[in-house]
């Protein structure tokens, strides 16, 4: 690798990086400081938060564990066995990713509500489904919509492990099962841990689904007490931040530095014949797809269809939210990429130690729940003299999105910078003296694919975001997410169905191009 000997980055890049780091750290720090500043009886407030904290930890742990089990199990079944139709199934099992978890939860609630498809089907045999609420359904539903975060990295890793490893183990006296546990599983460790971490952070910051399912976690407390009892709200937010930080640190420690060499090669792994287990395995995959995709989508479809037939769907109500969603999502993606790229240049091209610390700060922005970032920005805007006007404006909403999702553009931005290696830059300097022409004809075409996919990931997350949008959106500014949310709260299930389907379709298209095409190894192999 070419090292930039003695090259010094332009000064503005440093300034930009420092401002960026400050912006990303600010919401978290502000919450912590504000918690102390609000005073109240700190000990008592913290004591009150113990219950919600326990529930957050219980839910996040159980969801992470089950997502790891389901994601890893599916990855093994669909990569390493002779299960029929595994190529198609590999695409289907990723589909729950397109459902924002609150839409998924709403779809399940609508499915078991009178008139919903599950209610109707069970009604035939005289069973009334219970109202979904509490830990059990929260755990089950969140598992369904988060296991792909484990499935994707583990399946990719499984495809990248040379079959000769397991074969060597066999020749050295191990049975197939022993070879898997002693040789393959240790190679999957880092993929499982990082996938599990994502699920844990996702669940810790989950708001919509637990709110609908009435499971009192910290996010629910933050949301419900944000106006009436600010000390409790801020204390809960602080605890949430500390929890996220602790989990990230623990995971880094456990994962250690023993990273397996990442190969770009793909292998056709030997497939394990399932034999008489084939039907059971097929059934297990089927159940996951049934509940992760078929039930929620059909529930939304049934309600939407009934509403359309009955003329109860107001399509014009969806036009503005759809436009707003596309607009604010695209703008956020563009801003995120624009602010992150200079940082990626510092990290990749100049290899500065301090810049990697700053990029860690950016990535930490993802660990802080969107609800907490929103709470912090609201409080900051309202309580800081002279900036009050920014509250409930579009710029503040976009700032919140960028802080929360900027990390998702980081990896792609680094790829984009790497796409123009030093040697290429130097040879283009010999051929073309104008930096502007070079940027247009050399840098831009090479960086475009990575930048688009980085921006696309931010866009995808933004359109699915709920709590920050609820807290920060300008009055009257409705997105698809808030529209679905509001319709559910008003009991207008038909509108939930139509809005949910539009949101899912949008996110499905983006997911197809961004997630599935990028993990071509997993889907096409």
């Amino acid at each position, binding site marked *: 690798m070419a090292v930039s000997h003695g090259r010094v980055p332009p000064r503005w890049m440093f300034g930009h990086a420092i401002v960026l780091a400050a912006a990303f750290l600010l919401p978290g720090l502000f919450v912590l400081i504000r918690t102390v500043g609000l005073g109240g009886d700190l000990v008592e407030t913290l004591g009150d938060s113990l219950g919600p904290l326990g529930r957050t930890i219980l839910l996040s742990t159980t969801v992470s564990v089950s997502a790891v089990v389901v994601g890893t199990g599916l990855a093994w079944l669909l990569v390493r066995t002779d299960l029929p139709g595994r190529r198609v199934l590999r695409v289907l099992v990723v589909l729950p990713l397109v459902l924002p978890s609150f839409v998924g939860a709403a779809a399940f609630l609508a499915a078991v509500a009178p008139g919903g498809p599950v209610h109707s089907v069970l009604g035939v045999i005289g069973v009334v489904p219970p109202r979904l609420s509490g830990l059990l359904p929260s755990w089950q539903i969140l598992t369904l919509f988060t296991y792909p975060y484990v499935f994707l990295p583990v399946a990719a890793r499984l495809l990248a492990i*040379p079959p000769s490893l397991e*074969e060597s*183990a066999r*020749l*050295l006296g191990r*049975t197939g099962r022993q070879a898997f546990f002693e040789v393959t599983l240790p*190679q999957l*460790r880092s993929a499982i841990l990082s996938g599990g971490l994502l699920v844990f952070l996702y669940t810790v910051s989950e708001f919509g689904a637990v709110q609908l399912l009435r499971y009192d976690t910290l996010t629910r407390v933050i949301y419900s007490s944000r106006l009436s009892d600010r000390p409790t709200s801020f204390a809960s937010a602080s605890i949430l931040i500390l929890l996220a930080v602790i989990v990230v640190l623990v995971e880094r420690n456990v994962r250690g530095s023993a990273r397996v*060499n990442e190969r770009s090669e793909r292998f056709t792994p030997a497939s394990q014949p399932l034999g008489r287990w084939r039907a059971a395995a097929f059934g297990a995959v089927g159940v996951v797809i049934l509940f992760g995709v078929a039930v929620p989508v059909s529930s939304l479809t049934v309600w939407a269809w009934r509403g359309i037939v009955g003329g109860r769907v107001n399509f014009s109500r969806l036009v503005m939210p759809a436009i707003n969603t596309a607009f604010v999502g695209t703008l956020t993606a563009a801003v995120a990429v624009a602010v992150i790229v200079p940082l990626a240049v510092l990290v990749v091209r100049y290899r500065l130690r301090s810049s990697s610390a700053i990029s860690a700060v950016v990535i930490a922005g993802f660990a802080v729940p969107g609800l907490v970032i929103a709470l912090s920005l609201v409080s900051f805007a309202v309580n800081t003299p002279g900036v009050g006007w920014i509250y409930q404006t579009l710029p503040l909403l976009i700032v919140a999105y960028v802080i929360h999702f900027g990390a998702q553009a980081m990896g792609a931005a680094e790829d984009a910078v790497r796409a123009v290696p030093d040697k290429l830059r130097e040879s283009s300097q010999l051929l073309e003296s104008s930096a502007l022409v070079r940027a247009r004809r050399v840098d831009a075409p090479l960086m475009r694919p990575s930048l688009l996919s980085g921006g696309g990931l931010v866009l995808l997350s933004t359109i699915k975001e709920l709590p920050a949008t609820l807290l920060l959106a300008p009055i009257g500014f409705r997105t698809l997410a808030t529209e679905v949310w509001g319709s559910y709260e008003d009991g207008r299930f038909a509108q939930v169905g139509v809005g949910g389907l539009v949101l899912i379709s949008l996110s499905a298209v983006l997911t197809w191009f961004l997630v599935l095409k990028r993990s071509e190894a997993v889907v096409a192999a």
Partner: protein
Amino acid sequence: MLGRVLTNPLAGSARAGRTLNTGHTTAGLWLSEASVHIGGNPIVESASLDITPGTIVSLLGPSGCGKTTLLRSIAGLQRLSSGSITVGDVVIASDSVHLPPEQRRVGMVFQDGALFPHLSVADNVSFGLRGWAGSSDRANEVLALVDMAGFGDRMPGTLSGGQRQRVALARALAPQPSVLLLDEPFSALDAGLRLQVRRDVKKLITQIGITTIVVTHDQEEAFALGEQVAVMSQGAIHQVGAPNDLYENPASPWVATFVGEGIGLAGSFEGGYVSTAIGSLPARWVSASPKTAGASVIVRPEQLVLTAGGSAEVTDVEYYGHDVRYDVTLRDQSNVSVRSLSPEFKVGDRVDVNFVGTSVPAWPA
């Protein structure tokens, strides 16, 4: 020539195994009409091979010829479709038997070494020694054998390519397998290193005296390593023999040109000679003598010499140091190559091509 059985005076006699001074008990290996079909496609077609205990056999063939599949079926990583494989006096694979790999006592070194990246060198080597008394002593012993003593605590990621292959060999040898299989073991190494590692490995496996099959697509490697070489193409073993036997008495023009550079010439056969564009060559029929007069022969470049002045022209010169290779265009516009020790000619020189070998193999045209 399909499936010709190795003709070795020792074959079949001492197959029960013999004990060597290194503590290894090696065994003979017998493939009988072994076939592997994958998805309806014949990958290996009735391959037969009889390997005397302690022999090193090279399995040589172009890529995709089925040699690796054959090796994997010996290891138990691939099921046979028909035929059988016997090690010592145990049938390990046949129509009715498929001994799983872990019960075959077969050691294998893969192209990429396949070291377990999460285990240290010592743990890799003792992986196959579970349940052994004194497994760490044994691990140290084999590491010393491959000249890697003192590397036990290193992780595979920190080793060079050559070191990795040495450790992979040590790991395969540690549980004292009856048969050792090497799948293109040196192809991932760069040229200089490859030669050194190859010599060390040959010395070691000769010392131990273990029955070994080396799969390679490189003729030089096959000849350098194998006491016997089996030439494979399109799923079939075409010929088995000692390297010099293959080179001098190839079973077919294809084998002749695959195991070395050969110039195919056509001519007519008469009284033990074939008259060709470079003159009348003493010929010997490889198969029974034909009824037709047309014949094709294979001439080796080192069987030809150039003399100054003549009707042929030198069109290219490649200087290798130890010898020189000339491309020569004959009067009838056909091309031959000539290897010579002296660099006396240059491009454009008029020369005459003379045959100086004893005889050439001939086939009916």
